């Protein structure tokens, strides 16, 4: 162990970083330590604060508090260029290079070998070849970068960063668009670089890869540091628990018995429903007065299921029935016509129309459902808006305020109001409490329970397992874009969900070992 990363000097030290966007605290007092020559995985669900941490460290966002030390010296880069000069290089999932320029030009952009003011193309190509050879890559460096695979583009970006004398290399989801073989190549290069003493931060949501490559893991959740562990001594189940939260809520008392709901009848059912390459065929039954929770890691197919159910995405197999009758659900309009509603996770880009008022946002879906020729009069609109502003306690209680000026929690309530105004039979909520402050958080959960008591069917996605356990009557667990487990009644608790999420991955990891 003396030669391991443990004894290595501390390379990048982040202490007490905080960062807020408006009322949302994206990072609170986060520490992070990267040692020379180690590969350190930075993990967390969507919104945990990984990207914010990277952007604060590389100077893209100014930080509210905390310090960053590189090799013992405090640094405060104010742009990604300054960070690069200081020795911190970042390679993003979408490679930030110029696809229309040649590989060599990309490698030496901004620092081309010159003679008499003219770029020495031959010299540049020779050096590019030498540089890439060090990464085991033998390609035509005169060809445009865009003509190569994403993997080679990544390696080019990494080579450029390392050649710029980077000491810290941050890889943000580098493997998301790579196939198995390409991942192997990338991992080989990462190990080589670590062997040269470069510290690598590896952000990924592929846990198998994290276990394969990383020496150490830091987990963030809701903008806070959950912990830092050695990969070898951290069981997979424990890791998932760290990522998804472990404060077990007292739950069963709040839940009505499952039998009562079955009597209320099926609202919508899906058989063998799916879409090739999107989410594997699934069976799903949604009943009146019942909350079905969708649990799983990021990218497990939760949002994909929700979009198929609502009709935001076209299915290519299986059957859907609404109130027992076969139904076509291929466009959002189909969904709306059948009395479905969908609050997407991306509230700003897919939910609100920021420029329009609270009133207009609330009546939008109802008006679309009624059709052009049956406009809601201004008085009806005012009545509807006033009713929901009061019922959901939307603040400030001004229906004529542009909705873009409201806080995240109130925007979420406006979206809920938009669908409630259509008197839906089924509501699909994707991460309804994401990015919302704690007070509004509890309120939204209370609303979900109330709606369900009124006979609405609900399909709710959340990364917060405590939350899912609190309100769900049934929980469907997803993994690798497939429904793998359905929990009911007493079986619904955090540890069972975690076990279902982790089950498959650990078997693969075991098979993978010699």
């Amino acid at each position: 162990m003396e030669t391991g990363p443990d004894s290595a000097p501390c390379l990048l030290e982040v202490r007490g970083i905080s960062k807020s966007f408006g009322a949302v605290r994206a990072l609170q007092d986060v520490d992070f330590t990267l040692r020379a020559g180690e590969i350190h995985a930075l993990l967390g669900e969507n919104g945990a604060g990984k990207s914010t941490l990277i952007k604060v460290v590389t100077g893209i966002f100014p930080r509210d508090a905390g310090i960053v030390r590189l090799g013992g010296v405090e640094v405060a880069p104010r742009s990604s260029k300054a960070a690069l000069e200081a020795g911190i290089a970042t390679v993003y999932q979408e490679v930030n290079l110029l696809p229309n320029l040649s590989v060599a030009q990309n490698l030496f952009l901004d620092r081309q070998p010159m003679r008499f003011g003219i770029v020495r193309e031959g010299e540049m190509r020779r050096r590019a070849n030498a540089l890439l050879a060090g990464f085991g890559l033998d390609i035509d460096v005169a060809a445009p970068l865009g003509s190569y695979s994403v993997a080679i583009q990544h390696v080019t970006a990494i080579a450029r960063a390392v050649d710029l004398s980077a000491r810290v290399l941050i890889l943000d989801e580098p493997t998301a668009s790579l196939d198995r073989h390409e991942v192997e190549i990338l991992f080989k290069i990462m190990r080589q670089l670590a062997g040269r003493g470069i510290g690598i931060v590896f952000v990924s949501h592929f846990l198998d890869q994290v276990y394969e490559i990383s020496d150490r893991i830091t987990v963030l959740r809701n903008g806070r540091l959950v912990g830092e562990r050695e990969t070898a001594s951290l069981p997979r189940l424990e890791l998932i628990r760290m990522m998804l939260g472990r404060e077990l809520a007292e739950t069963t008392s709040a839940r009505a018995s499952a039998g009562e709901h079955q009597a209320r009848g099926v609202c919508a059912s899906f058989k063998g429903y799916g879409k090739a390459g999107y989410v594997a065929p699934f069976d799903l039954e949604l009943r009146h007065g019942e909350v079905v929770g969708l649990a799983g890691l990021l990218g497990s197919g939760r949002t994909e299921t929700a979009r198929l159910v609502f009709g935001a995405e076209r299915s290519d197999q299986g059957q859907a029935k609404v109130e027992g009758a076969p139904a076509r659900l291929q466009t959002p309009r189909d969904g709306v016509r059948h009395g479905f509603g969908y609050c997407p996770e991306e509230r700003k880009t897919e939910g609100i129309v920021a420029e329009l008022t609270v009133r207009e946002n609330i009546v939008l879906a109802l008006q679309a459902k009624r059709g052009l020729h049956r406009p809601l009069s201004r008085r009806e609109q005012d009545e509807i808006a006033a009713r929901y502003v009061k019922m959901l306690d939307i603040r400030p209680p001004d229906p004529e305020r542009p909705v873009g000026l409201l806080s995240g929690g109130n925007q979420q309530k406006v979206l809920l109001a938009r669908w409630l105004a259509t008197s839906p039979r089924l509501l699909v909520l994707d991460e309804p409490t994401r990015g919302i402050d704690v007070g509004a958080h509890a309120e939204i959960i209370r609303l979900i329970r109330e709606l369900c008591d009124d006979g609405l069917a609900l399909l709710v996605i959340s990364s917060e397992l405590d939350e899912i356990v609190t309100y769900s009557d049934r929980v469907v667990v997803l993994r690798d874009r497939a429904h793998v487990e359905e929990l009911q009644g007493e079986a619904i608790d955090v540890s069972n969900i975690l076990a279902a999420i982790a089950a498959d991955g650990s078997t693969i990891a075991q098979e993978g070992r010699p």
Partner: protein
Amino acid sequence: MTALLPRRGLAQIFALIVILMVDRAVSPQFFDLRLQDGRLFGSMIDVLNRGTPVALLSLGMVLVIATRGIDLSVGAVMAISGAIAASLADSHGLPVVLAAALGAGLVCGLWNGFLVSILGMQPIVATLILMVAGRGIAQLITEGRIVTFTSPDLVWLGNGAILGVPVPVAIALGMLILTGAVVRGSALGLLIEATGGNARASDLAGVGTRAMILAVYVWCGVCAALAGVIAAADIMGADANNAGLWLELDAILAVVIGGTSLFGGRFSLLLAVLGALIIQTMNTGILLSGYPPEFNLLVKAVVVLAVLLLQSPKLTGMAGIVARIRGTKA
């Protein structure tokens, strides 16, 4: 009326009054009106009459721009419909002439709408196609000549009067009322604003955004065709090379002056027409002043710049900062 004329209209009304005052200063008879042969004459009537084509174009354009689109082809559509009207005028009755010309505009609008909404092309590129091709089509219809006609019915459309009001002005007014009634009387206005404000969100809310986008391009085509017929009727002939030339830019300018953002969303029909009138009042004023018409373009450019600067979020942001600094100093 409040839906048609929001509070922000004050700036445009103020601008119009200022320009009218300048016009009055360079031409003392500017506000004089006289009745002759059952038709009103005077500089003000000229402004309204000359402003009709751009006002009609802006009625369609403002809806297109509200959906975050743009239609560069309206000038070419004017040429097409003018050419059709002129070619048919002496051999067919007015209803047939109008139906053919407006039908052509409808087809042009469908074509643009198809490219933008169904094929998902960028509006500026999609309509550029018809902007170029349309003038060619018009030249094919007129066989490269200037087609003249004598049909009194069609001539009346450009030069007649109803209760003293020139027919083109009456038509423009009628179209403003009709468009306003359709757009604000139905839910179309709200759904167009929602589509322009956030198309993805509107689509998920069940708004048929494709149909919305198709509809506004069709309406824009019909308005342009009507403007083309009036322009042809005015000069009693169709000149495929020059009819409606560059008027798409005036129409866009009118919409922008009317406060509708090129980023889509909120729009105002009345203010777009007011924008068209502001442009025409400027044009007429420069003509009356005796300055060479070349000044026209320069003055227009300055007005565009002023309007765009006022809309720029950066500038308003800076103005806010300046105001805050002053506030803290005070």
